[in-house]
């Protein structure tokens, strides 16, 4: 492994003491190609969002966790839904709660809440005089408030949201990297370290808008056909530490990946299984039940496929292979 295949953070943006206390503690098993690593490094260097596309289950979201762990930075995940608005990622403001508190205060019974959230609403006794106590920061908002180093922000499945969503985000994810909290008379929240933004998309609603794409570094994650073995090794090396699980024997991995790739590359599947499905399948082959001659069965192209329910998720695919 040479240095260029490592994620690199410019020196002035590295966390003090090597790792941020909120950085992920458990390593994320991930095998990144050199080009993907370059893409992440470029995104970090140019302070632009990295847009990832690719088949489901090929490791788009996991890249953010991997980057956060490798660089020792805090990770904030934002799973976008169909109702998400761009503002939700920055903050939400609870005006009803404030109104409620004003009323209670006037009637003498001050309520105490046990809310020990770190950002925004931090007082156990809320003071309706100060609007900031009714502000809850979202993933981007938290990342903007990191003092010592940038945070990694994962905006997962951006295409799920309304079509205006990416454009609304654009103004925030650019110089001067600040946003205002309109409900409070506070100075705008200014990011000391612009966050490293990783965005995933499945293109469910067609292309993202052109101005948004123009800002992004784009990378298409392909199915890692030639790296399955490496991925399996990384995956089980990580699990061995936590759960004391032995890696599957080498001939099983080889036979399984051969069979898997043969089915996948044949090109007649409606939905191709991804890396995560392969790992699940391999885990089932390894430890679900004692099977005799698994390797033999996998190598025999005429034998019935074992555990097809893990690989085929559409009826047509199922009927073609599971029943064969």
């Amino acid at each position, binding site marked *: 492994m040479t240095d*260029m295949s490592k994620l690199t953070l410019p020196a002035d943006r590295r966390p003090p003491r090597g790792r941020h206390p909120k950085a992920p503690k458990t390593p994320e098993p991930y095998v990144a190609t050199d080009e993907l690593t*370059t893409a992440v490094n470029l995104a970090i260097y140019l302070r*632009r969002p990295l847009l990832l*596309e690719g088949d489901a289950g090929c490791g788009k979201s996991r890249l953010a966790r991997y980057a956060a762990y490798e660089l020792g930075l805090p990770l904030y995940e934002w799973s976008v839904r169909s109702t998400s608005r761009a503002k939700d990622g920055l903050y939400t403001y609870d005006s009803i709660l404030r109104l409620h508190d004003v009323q209670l205060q006037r009637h003498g019974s001050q309520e105490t809440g046990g809310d020990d959230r770190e950002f925004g609403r931090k007082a156990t006794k809320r003071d309706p005089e100060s609007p900031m106590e009714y502000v809850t920061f979202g993933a981007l908002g938290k990342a903007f408030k990191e003092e010592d180093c940038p945070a990694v922000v994962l905006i997962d499945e951006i295409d799920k949201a309304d079509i205006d969503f990416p454009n609304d985000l654009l103004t925030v994810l650019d110089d001067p990297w600040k946003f205002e909290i309109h409900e409070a008379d506070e100075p705008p929240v200014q990011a000391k370290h612009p966050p490293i933004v990783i965005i995933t998309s499945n293109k469910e609603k067609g*292309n993202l808008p052109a101005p948004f794409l*123009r800002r992004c*570094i784009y*990378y298409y994650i392909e199915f890692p056909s030639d790296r399955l073995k490496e991925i399996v090794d990384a995956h089980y090396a990580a699990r061995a530490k936590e759960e004391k699980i032995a890696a599957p024997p080498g001939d099983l991995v080889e036979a399984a990946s051969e069979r898997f790739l043969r089915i996948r590359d044949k090109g007649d599947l409606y939905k191709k299984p991804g890396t995560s499905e392969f790992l699940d399948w391999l885990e089932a082959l390894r430890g679900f039940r004692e099977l005799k001659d698994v390797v033999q069965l996998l190598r025999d192209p005429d034998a019935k496929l074992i555990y097809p329910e893990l690989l085929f998720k559409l009826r047509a695919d199922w009927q073609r292979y599971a029943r064969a």
Partner: protein
Amino acid sequence: MNEAEAKPLLLDLFRRLRRAGAVLGIGELLAAYRVVDEGWGGGDTEALRQLGRLLWCKSVQEAADFEEIFDAAAAARAHVPTEPPSPEVEKEPVEPQPTPEQPPSEPPPSIPATEPPRRETGLAALPLRAPPQPQLPEAGEDLRAYWPVSRRSMVYTWRYLRRPVKDGPRNVLDLAATVERAARRGLFLEAVYERRETNHAHLVLLVDQGGSMVPFHRFTRDLVETACVESPIGQVDVAYFHNVPPDRLYRDAYLTEPLPLEHALAGCTPDSSILLVGDAGAARGYRNLQRVRSSTQLLVRLKRLTTLIAWLNPMPRHRWPGTSAELIAHLVPMFQMDADGFSNAVDVLRGQPLHPRG
């Protein structure tokens, strides 16, 4: 290749990409320069190719085109590497860090240039890279040339077709009313909610299908799908016809389930909008009086129901003269199917045409 050679190549590449229709601004060029200044693309042509692809390509399709354009630009600059750059030259500025763990506290002056995985050479002078071929519903090379309205802009434009009525569930907080009521009562009892607005627009889509419309099926499919699924329009009725509108209508795009015209128009009120989509003979250059007559009959009938009628023609306007489309365009506002034409058509459908007809 050093920095002084890399920049002209990037500039040339940038110009070529823009000419090919890529959406790139001067900011993208400057970003690439910044990266080169830091010594990223300094390694060789392959490193520059990778840099350009990451920075300037926004889809798999574009990345495939990019390879060709890059090859052309590199060849034009006469930097054709007849053999792979010798590793000694590359290694010189980029000493691999021996420590594999945490980077040293001393900042490296530059982030090391990237070195792409070496491929077999000797097959061709230029290292070629097969374009990635994932399973994406994207058009082939030939179909990409004609792209008048993107699916996304259809979704945007449909939004303007709305007739909001507050009759949804009562679940929208009326902040002003809540505060006002609390102030009047002297205490806050409950929040005031108001009804959610729903879109009561009604759209009837009559789509010409098959025959001369086959090349445009992609657009009509997108049009119907976006209107039905991705638009806020309350009610969308779709009916298909072949060539001449009033003959027969069908419920499905394969013209198998007949649908009487009365049924298709049953839900029409004066507030309903009717959009006809068809080439009206312009695709093949017909001027068929029979066709004009039956279209006229239909239009007269539709005009009794509503005035919000527009016709979207996938053929450009300059192909209409001399065909039945020219005649029909006198009877109904007809627009060519590009982004402008489509939004003008929607303006007519919502009763606020840009240029009211006298």
